[in-house]
């Protein structure tokens, strides 16, 4: 039975159902219980935005507040995973990865390989990403290209409540370390979500919209903005197909190639910075694999090579807008195929 709930509720529900199902699932992070041992412990915070609200009382001993020591507790999640638990560690903002990246990319990500296949590290790092709430340069970044670059990590970035629940459940059941990216501008978005638990397999892109003229690949919040652009372009007779990879590693390249084979034109919209970014990754792989199918130069729509600014005017100019996306699509759609 599906009902409409928010992206945030879907995440909370996925955590609750997996903790219910499997007692080796534990969650940890700063203030995710929120006020353990305080006077107000009965009405615990449940995370800075309340995403984990209610879990602390429901699962005694399995919901842990942490000191502000990301290296210690993210590393602890890796050690717990290697010794039998399925920890879900929350990194409040993905921007904080810089204080604990070693435990993620040199420890958790490499155990299995370095140890000759003898280790299993089933951990999830839930973390908030993206711009839009005027949180400035250190609380608004989109760092999936960095995690996608690292062998041994899986990277998940849901764009809807339905995907958020199904992909988080899959992430928790998965036997490899997973970076689960929750876009802060999507928490309040609503959608139909089944009550029962379900898992969405990784590397299965979602065809958000079918179309014949131009393929738009977009991730996270950019999927919503691409839809707005596509709706507008419809009126102009440009039919867009929108492909949401949902997971950047592993990546469902086949679905993207399939779409490009049909449209011959590609626009990749991504919220991360451009250099060595995800848009470049997709454009490069498509060009290498399907050069012959391309009727026009693919285009990348991303923020500029700059940090995220604070002022609303600046942040709005930083993030790709439906208008900018539409303009790029028109260009690609209009470009004649080279003789």
């Amino acid at each position, binding site marked *: 039975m599906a009902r409409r709930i928010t992206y945030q509720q879907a995440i909370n529900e996925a955590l609750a159902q997996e903790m219910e199902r499997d007692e080796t699932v534990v969650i940890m992070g*700063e*203030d995710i219980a*929120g*006020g*353990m*041992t*305080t*006077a*107000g*412990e009965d*009405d*615990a*915070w449940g995370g*800075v935005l309340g995403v984990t609200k209610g879990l602390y009382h429901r699962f005694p001993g399995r919901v842990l*507040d*942490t*000191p*502000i*020591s990301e*290296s*210690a507790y993210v590393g602890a999640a890796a050690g717990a995973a290697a010794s039998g638990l399925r920890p879900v560690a929350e990194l409040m903002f993905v*921007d*904080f990865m*810089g*204080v604990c990246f070693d435990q993620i990319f040199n420890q958790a990500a490499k155990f299995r390989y370095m140890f000759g296949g003898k280790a299993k590290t089933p951990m999830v790092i839930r973390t908030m990403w993206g711009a839009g*709430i*005027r*949180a*400035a*340069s*250190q*609380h608004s970044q989109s760092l999936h290209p960095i995690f996608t670059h690292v062998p041994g990590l899986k990277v998940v970035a849901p764009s809807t409540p339905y995907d958020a629940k199904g992909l988080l459940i899959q992430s928790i059941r998965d036997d490899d370390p997973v970076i689960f990216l929750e876009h802060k501008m999507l928490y309040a978005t609503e959608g139909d979500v089944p009550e029962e638990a379900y898992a969405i397999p990784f590397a299965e892109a979602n065809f958000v919209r079918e179309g014949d003229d131009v393929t738009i690949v977009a991730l996270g919040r950019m999927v919503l903005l691409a839809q707005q652009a596509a709706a507008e372009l419809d009126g102009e007779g440009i039919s867009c197909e929108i492909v949401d990879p949902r997971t950047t590693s592993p990546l469902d390249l086949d679905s993207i190639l399939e779409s490009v084979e049909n449209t011959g034109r590609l626009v990749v919209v991504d919220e991360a910075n451009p250099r060595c970014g995800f848009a470049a990754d997709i454009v490069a792989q498509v060009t290498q694999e399907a050069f012959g199918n391309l009727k026009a130069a693919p285009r990348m729509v991303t923020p*500029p*090579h*700059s*940090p995220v*600014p*604070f*002022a*609303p*005017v*600046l942040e*709005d*100019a*930083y993030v790709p807008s439906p208008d900018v996306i539409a303009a790029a699509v028109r260009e690609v759609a209009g470009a004649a195929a080279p003789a």
Partner: protein
Amino acid sequence: MSAVAPPVSGELTKDQLLEAYRVMRTIREFEERLHTEFATGEIPGFVHLYAGEEAIAAGVCTHLRSDDYVASTHRGHGHSIAKGCDVAAMMAEIYGKREGICHGKGGSMHIADLSKGMLGANGIVGGGPPLVCGVGLTAKVRGSDQVAVSFTGDGGSNQGTFLESLNLAAAWHLPVIFVVENNGYAESTPPTYHQSGVDVAKRADGFGLPGIVVDGFDFFAVHEAAGEAIQRARSGGGATLIECKGMRYFGHFEGDQQTYRGAGEVEEIRRTRDCLAAFSRRVTEAGMVDDDDLSAIDQSVTELIDRAVADAKAGTDPTPDEVQTDVYVSY
């Protein structure tokens, strides 16, 4: 604070007392006013208010020259004001205007002014301590007697960067002061939980540094402890850790429901421990300053903040093309 000559001893002149009061009052007014204005929804992003902890920023920074440096936290308005940043430019920054101290690019969490020795508020908990080690190194290499101070919260004192910095400052014998503002919470989590209730000052011993605990509501206690530490640092005596026990009056950030707090907790503190009330009582009872001096300051501060808010609201927005300026000096 460069206008006033740093006192050699703990003795304060009337001018210095009035200046200290002006700083604390300005911080209080700035924060109380932001609390009200934020509720109107006109302020973008989120702000972390310093109200309640004024005696710490003032007690430390009254000893500093403008060529000394401080590195601040996400809760940085108080340190910025105490270090001499322009209050109107700070307010404009918080409103995201081009007249802002960072031209609207930084906002509340990144207020900085290197010309005033303010190395920046910091959105990363524990981001500042390594930076002040670097400033200390600059002073050593130059052979100057500059010092650098980092402010860190109780929660931030669990970040590896803070702990590593204590050791580096000791190994390099740096002119640095680590001020820990223990205000009873890291967001919703209390030190009794996140650091087992052990004084942060105790950590100094393990690195061979002096560490002391002072009452963060008492300007004079902070001022005296900071004076000694800064004197020691200036004269080549190395680093010190000072833990100031205090309390924030508002939520972790504006909008925080503060469900973790006991009923009446803040009201009680405001009534019994308030640093401004205590300071006023002490200096007037001692006859060093009279009420009129203080109310004159109160009035001028109110006017200053009124103007700052009005100007900030009337300020101009940056233009979209500025997104790409000042990423590099040259590129």
